C-alpha cells in the first residue's frame, strides 16, 4: 500500500514537474556581497519576493569576490554580484554566467588606510612594509595597478592576503602597516584612530581604473526563466531608486543590515555610487554591451592585467566579455 502511494507520488511529480518547470522556479538563491549597496535595501524591503510571489527567496551573504566565484562555480547561487576582477576571471575561465546590471560603482567605500606611525607619505614608502588586501578583489587589483603606475616592484614589500574582517583584526593587533579594503571593516579601522586615509578607489576610478560590481545570473537559470531575470532586475532597480530617493530611510536599513551606527551607514552610503537603471545603458556603464562600452573596456584591461600577473592562463578576449554583457533584459525593464 505504502509502496503504491509512493509510486503514485513519484509519478505525479514526474508528470507535473516538466509542465511547470519552464515558467516558475521553486526557489531563487541570491548571493550578495558583504558591502554597502542597494542590494541590502532590496533584500530588507523584500522587493524580490514582491516580484516573485510564491517563490522561495534565499539570500546568502558572501565575503568577497573569490568566495562568490567559488559559489558560482559550485552552482550554489542563481544570482550573484561580482567586482570587475573576479568577473574577468570567471568569464575568461568560462563560468556559465551573464552580466545583467550595474550593482554599484565603487568610490571611497573602498580605500587604502595606512598607520600613521609607519611614516607612509607616498607609495614609495611602502617598501619593506606589510600591506594587506583580499587577493583577487577590486582593491588588490587597484593596489597592484597603483604600484605599477608608480614603477614600484610589488616584491619590494610584503603583500598579504586577508579578508576585510581579518584586516580589521590584524590592524588592531598592529600586525600590518597598510591595507586597501572596504566598508564596513574599513570604517572600524579608521574609527580606531591609529589609521588615516591614504587613497580611495574613487580617486583611482578618475585615473582610469573604475571598479564596480555587476549583477550576474547563471546561464542555466536565465535560459529556463528569462522572465524571472527581468523580475530580479526590476526589484533591484526599485531598490536603487529607493536608495537615491530616500537616503535617510536607506541609511536606517543599511545600519540595521550591517549592524552599524546610523552615522557610519550614512558615510558609507556616500562612498558608493548607485546608478539608476535608466542610466545604466549609457556607454559609460553597460552601454550596448559592445567592445566600446565602459564595462567591457574595464573588463578587457582587468583581464589583461590579471594575465600579466599570471592569475589568468590566457589574455582577455573581447568576444567573451561582449557575450557576457547582456543588456537585453535591462532594456526591457527600463523600456
Amino acid at each position: 500500500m505504502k509502496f503504491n502511494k509512493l509510486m503514485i507520488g513519484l509519478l505525479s511529480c514526474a508528470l507535473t514537474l516538466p509542465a511547470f518547470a519552464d515558467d516558475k522556479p521553486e526557489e531563487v538563491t541570491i548571493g550578495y556581497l558583504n558591502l554597502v549597496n542597494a542590494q541590502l535595501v532590496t533584500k530588507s524591503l523584500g522587493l524580490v519576493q514582491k516580484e516573485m510571489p510564491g517563490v522561495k527567496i534565499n539570500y546568502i551573504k558572501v565575503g568577497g569576490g573569490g568566495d562568490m566565484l567559488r559559489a558560482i562555480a559550485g552552482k550554489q547561487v542563481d544570482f550573484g554580484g561580482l567586482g570587475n576582477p573576479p568577473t574577468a576571471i570567471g568569464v575568461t575561465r568560462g563560468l556559465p554566467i551573464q552580466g545583467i546590471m550595474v550593482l554599484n560603482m565603487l568610490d571611497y567605500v573602498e580605500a587604502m588606510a595606512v598607520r600613521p606611525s609607519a611614516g607612509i607619505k607616498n607609495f614609495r614608502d611602502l617598501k619593506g612594509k606589510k600591506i594587506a588586501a583580499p587577493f583577487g578583489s577590486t582593491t588588490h587589483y587597484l593596489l597592484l595597478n597603483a604600484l605599477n603606475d608608480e614603477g614600484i616592484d610589488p616584491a619590494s614589500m610584503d603583500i598579504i592576503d586577508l579578508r576585510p574582517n581579518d584586516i580589521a583584526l590584524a590592524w588592531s593587533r598592529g600586525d600590518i602597516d597598510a591595507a586597501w579594503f572596504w566598508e564596513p571593516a574599513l570604517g572600524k579601522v579608521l574609527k580606531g584612530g591609529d589609521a588615516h586615509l591614504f587613497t580611495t578607489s574613487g580617486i583611482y576610478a578618475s585615473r582610469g581604473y573604475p571598479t564596480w560590481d555587476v549583477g550576474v545570473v547563471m546561464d542555466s537559470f536565465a535560459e529556463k526563466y528569462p522572465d524571472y531575470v527581468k523580475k530580479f532586475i526590476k526589484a533591484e532597480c526599485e531598490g536603487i531608486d529607493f536608495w537615491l530617493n530616500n537616503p535617510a530611510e536607506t541609511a536606517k536599513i543599511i545600519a540595521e543590515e550591517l549592524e552599524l551606527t546610523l552615522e557610519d551607514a550614512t558615510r558609507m552610503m556616500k562612498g558608493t555610487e548607485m546608478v539608476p537603471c535608466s542610466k545604466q545603458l549609457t556607454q559609460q556603464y553597460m552601454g550596448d554591451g559592445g567592445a566600446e562600452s565602459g564595462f567591457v573596456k574595464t573588463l578587457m584591461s582587468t583581464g589583461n592585467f590579471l594575465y600579466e600577473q599570471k592569475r589568468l592562463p590566457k589574455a582577455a578576449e573581447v568576444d567573451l566579455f561582449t557575450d557576457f554583457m547582456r543588456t537585453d533584459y535591462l532594456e526591457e525593464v527600463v523600456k
Partner: protein
Amino acid sequence: MKSLKIYLKDDKNKKLVISSLSVLTMFLAWVFVTETGLANPLFLPGPKAIWLSFLECLHEGYQGSTLVEHVATSLYRILAAFLLACLVGVPLGIFMGISKTINAMFNPFIEFYRPLPPLGLYTLLVMWLGIGEASKLALLFLAGLPGIIIATIQAVRDINPTLVLATRSLGAKKMDLIREVYLPGAGPTILTGMRISLGFVYTVLVAAEIVAASAGIGWMIWDAAKFLLSDVVIMGLIVLGLTGIALDFTMRLIGYLIMPWTRAAGLNSKV
C-alpha cells in the same frame, strides 16, 4: 603464467599488484573523462594540464615562489609544529599513563579541545598570536598534540606490569623505569600515534595557511582556487599527498632504525 601465480602467492606482492592496478584504473578513468569531454576542464583538467602546471610551478614558480619553496615553507611549518608536539606530547603522555593524578590534571583540556574544528580555533589563535608564523605553528601543533598523547598513554598502560615490578625489584628508580621499560616498550605504539598525528597536522595545513600567508603549498592551493586555477589546485593536492606519503615512510624508517626490536615485522608492515 605459473611464475606469476607464484609471485602473487606472496601476500606482499599481491598487495602491490592490486594497489598498482587500482591506481592505474583511476588514472585511466581520469584520462577517459577528460579526453572525451565528459568532465568540464574548468573543474577537472586532464593529466596533461596538471603536468604542465607542475613544470611551470617548478621552474617559474607560483606567485613569487617556486614549487620547491612552497613545499619547503609548508614542510618547515609542519615539521616544526610536529616536532614540538612530539617533544610535549610523548613525555606528557608517559606521565599521564603512569600517574593517575597527572592524567586527571590534563585530560579535561585535551578532551575538550580535541574535537573542536581547526578553523574555529584558528580565529582565536590569530587574535592572540597575530597573523604571522606563530598562529600557524600553534594551530598545527594543537592539531598534532592529542593523537600523540593519547597513543602514548595507551602504550604505557599496555606494558606488562610484571616487567615494571621485576625492574623495580632490581632497584630501578622511576627515571630508570621510564628509560629502560616504558620508552622501549611503548615505542612502537607511540610511533603509530605519531604517524596518525602527522596526518592530522597535514589535514589542517590549508586551514593554517589561509590567513595572511604568501607562500606554502596550502596557501598555493587556496589562492589558486580563488582564481579558478583548478590545474594548480589539483597539482598542489597531489604534491601534498606525495610529500605526506614520503614523510610517513621516513617516520617508519626512523622507527625501524632506532627500535631494532620491532624489525621482525619488517619495514613494510604497519607497526
